[in-house]
């Protein structure tokens, strides 16, 4: 029997980039919780992710999901050296803004605000896009994330120089690269396997 796509229930479609908590509705059938095996839980990494339709869809290929999740966690959560967490999140939000992933941008804009306390600047990035002026250090990070997100990739030695001039060391530059690159992975899954939904009005 040929599989079919899902029709999401009626919902409010977000039409702006936002820091609101959004929902995500799959276009393909996630695995039912009761069908999850030990191998699936190994792929989910955190058992609580079994509550998420997104992760229960991706867990159809559990080994890839597990490796993807562990890559993600090290790039963003490893506290050793490199770029401050706020700026890893900024790179993620900038890549998501350029690719047009309203869901991913909402999550990582919230994290960027939590860790940087620069609510107005993060909101400007969401409202006005990747061309905004956020001060030279953030501008250099956003420009690097943008150059890594376009196809063809336009990131080059001049972006490295600009990041260094903004006082990023080599490990921090590598974090910008990996954070932006990782969101070119995440955005494509989030954008193509389902859609965001706003919380109901009122």
């Amino acid at each position: 029997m040929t599989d079919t796509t899902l029709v999401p229930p009626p919902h409010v479609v977000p039409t702006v980039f936002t820091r609101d908590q959004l929902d995500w509705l799959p276009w393909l059938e996630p695995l039912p919780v009761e069908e999850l095996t030990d191998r699936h839980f190994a792929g989910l990494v955190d058992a609580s992710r079994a509550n998420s339709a997104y992760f229960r869809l991706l867990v159809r290929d559990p080994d890839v999901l597990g490796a993807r999740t562990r890559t993600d966690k090290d790039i963003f959560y490893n506290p050793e050296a490199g770029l401050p967490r706020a700026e890893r999140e900024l790179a993620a939000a900038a890549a998501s803004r350029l690719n047009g992933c309203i869901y991913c941008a909402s999550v990582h804009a919230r994290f960027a605000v939590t860790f940087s306390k620069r609510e107005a600047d993060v909101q400007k990035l969401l409202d006005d896009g990747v061309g905004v002026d956020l001060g030279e250090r953030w501008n250099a990070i956003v420009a690097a994330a943008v150059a890594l997100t376009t196809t063809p990739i336009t990131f080059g030695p001049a972006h490295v120089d600009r990041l260094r001039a903004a006082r990023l060391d080599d490990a921090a530059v590598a974090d910008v690269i990996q954070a932006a690159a990782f969101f070119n992975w995440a955005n494509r899954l989030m954008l193509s396997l389902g859609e965001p939904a706003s919380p109901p009005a009122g």
Partner: protein
Amino acid sequence: MSDIDVIDRLLGIAPGSALDRIRATRTEARAQAQASYRALFNPDDMAGIAQQERLAVAAFVVGLHGQSAVTEHYAGALAAAGATPALADAVAAAAKAATGQGPYGSYPAGPLSVEDQPGATWRVDGRIAPILGPRLTAAFEHMHLLILHPRDAGPTALQALLDAGWTTTDVVTLSQIAAFLAFQVRVVAGLGALATRL
């Protein structure tokens, strides 16, 4: 397929070099990027997607990025997996024909519509499609969407894959191939640029 770290190999990273030390600050990301590569292209269980199909899709996806060293790697792996010269040529020709500039696409109607950059939905050339067959033809058309205009994605595009014989689980794996490679080529391009300044 060997299990030498493919990003290291593509960048020519020598043990103890400056770039080796930088990658070592994110040991787990390095190991898990390689684990992702292995899980996608050399898993113990290929499930519903033959290795040759996985590598044909990969060669097409990296071809869209125009990163020649990465493209050569996947074209070589495709040949090693037993692809006929006709298939290898069809993959390369499709990638060349599909190359474009991204990301483009449209937003849900509303305030963001002013940012819409409508663009082509790419279709495999009628002379190449018979060589690829219906499964790879549908897969390549979806890969082009994911790489160059992912915000145009929707359930109709997924239904086209299902109609071509891919299962829901296959579509998850195909999507991971495109998305992972979008990451891998960017890490290689980014660290390659950093290497010129070390």
